[in-house]
């Protein structure tokens, strides 16, 4: 094949790929564009694509009239909190299974995976009632607990696949030199495990941020996360597209950006290491 032909192929594929990519991305693009329109321009027919009076009034209004900041704070607090607490249990577990496997390790790993496959509706009723009785309904503590537990298997699995890749020889050598498990963890394992831990945290924050079964069912006004805040938006504000778009943009922007950074980890984390 000649270079010119290569170039033409590349150009053709590029055009096709960009068309498809813009189509797939279009709903997000449209939401962002609409958020900068006036309400009138937002529902204009034919639709206005780029030539309209750009305004930021929707953002100002969403900011003032709803407790956006409180819901945003709830989302940050609960997704980050549940992941950090989850890591405290997941790191030692993954470490133990990666470095001191026993004949039960395989079973434990698969069993943990199976808990993730338990459909949430199977335990909705008891969790709801338990939470109601213990005052955890509509509380941050309750949600942190539930999200931590529902993501724990993914955390353990992701960490396990990362820890497996740390060369064992180094650990053996350290053990021969008489390093205690504590020192082993701090000086040898930690520096090599940190990238894996960071990836795990990143992906699980994204999952927790977007989780919408428990957040819709277990919260009311007080602790509503952005997921529930947006869902509630539809009653009084659903007809105001520009404001709806502004609120939506605010809700998804931080996590979409985080998501861009975590594409690789996503594959690994969500396939339980089956595809790398």
């Amino acid at each position: 094949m000649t270079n010119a032909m290569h170039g033409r192929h590349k150009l053709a594929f590029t055009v096709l790929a960009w068309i498809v990519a813009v189509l797939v991305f279009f709903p997000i693009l449209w939401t962002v564009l609409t958020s900068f329109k006036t309400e009138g321009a937002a529902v204009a027919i034919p639709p206005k694509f780029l030539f309209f009076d750009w305004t930021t009034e929707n953002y100002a209004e969403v900011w003032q009239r709803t407790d956006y900041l409180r819901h945003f704070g709830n989302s940050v607090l609960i997704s980050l909190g549940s992941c950090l607490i989850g890591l405290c249990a997941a790191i030692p577990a993954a470490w133990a299974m990666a470095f001191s496997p026993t004949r039960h390790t395989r079973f434990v790993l698969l069993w943990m995976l199976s808990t993730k496959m338990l459909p949430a509706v199977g335990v909705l009723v008891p969790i709801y009632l338990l939470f109601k009785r213990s005052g955890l309904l509509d509380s941050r503590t309750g949600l942190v607990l539930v999200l931590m537990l529902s993501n724990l298997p993914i955390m353990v699995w992701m960490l396990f696949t990362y820890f497996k890749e740390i060369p064992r020889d180094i650990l053996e050598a350290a053990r021969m030199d008489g390093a205690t498990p504590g020192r082993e963890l701090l000086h040898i394992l930690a520096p090599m495990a940190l990238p894996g831990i960071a990836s795990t945290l990143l992906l699980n924050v994204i999952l927790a941020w977007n989780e919408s079964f428990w957040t819709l069912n277990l919260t009311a006004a007080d602790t509503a996360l952005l997921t529930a805040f947006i869902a509630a938006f539809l009653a009084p504000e659903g007809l105001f597209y520009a404001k709806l778009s502004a609120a939506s943009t605010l809700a998804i922007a931080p996590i979409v950006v985080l998501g861009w950074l975590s594409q690789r980890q996503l594959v690994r984390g969500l396939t339980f290491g089956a595809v790398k």
Partner: protein
Amino acid sequence: MASIRNRATAQLALSPAVILLLVWMAIPLAMTLWYSFHDYQLLMPRGNAFVGFENYVYFLTDPAFLQSIGNTFVLVGSVLVITVAGGIGLALLLDQPLYGQGIVRVLIVSPFFVMPTVSALVWKNMFMNPVKGLFAWLAQVFGVAAVDWLAQVPLLSLTLIVAWGWLPFATLILLTSLQSLDTEQKEAAAMDGAGAVARFVHITLPHLARAVTVVILIQTIFLLSLFAEIFVTTNGGPGTQSTNLAYLVYSQALLRFDVGSASAGGVVAVILANILAIFLMRLVGRNLEV
């Protein structure tokens, strides 16, 4: 090599996660099971008598149940077909040398990170609204009658919304798998005179089979408990036309306050998911090196 002390430490390190998950799984499941055999109405506490399989009979003979099972399968199945076929196509495209490949990739994966309530609201109002939505405008441009998407074809609309969110996931996983394909093998086949189609069928597809299986199984797990999209767009309606199993259990429990039959539904959902889980566990377990 591992000394007894090391082993003990390892068991200790493992135990918090195991105990947490055991409690999280065992207690609520046991409660669901217990409720499912009792007459338990949240609003009318009347002794919670043991009723045997009555709740199951009630739940399973409810016409909404059969419909919800059907809807669940239609939703899961059609989303799977769209995302797997589309994902293979997109992965093949992204695997080509492109100008601005990084940006194309970022654009295509983005929908996966949009929270379900937002995507459902945006699609419902700004695209599928029969008067003000973009689809209505497109229909007008092409001179066909506007469709009230969520009222007339609720399942199709939901499929579209959900597939949009999961297409990036399938694409990303299939692309990752595609990039691990040995290029030498493809080049050798090309040298032997195999055409593009033959190479795709005999080399690329078999290589992708594993990733496709993983995509199908993982998406099935998430799609079986599809909830937020239905909650935001159709509330399971019109009637029960777009009620899936998860939504039916939710409405029994938190809208009709019938804990007993909701629990029976929960048990049915668990059994259904377990059947599928067995397949996934086999697949993941097979290449698990411990």
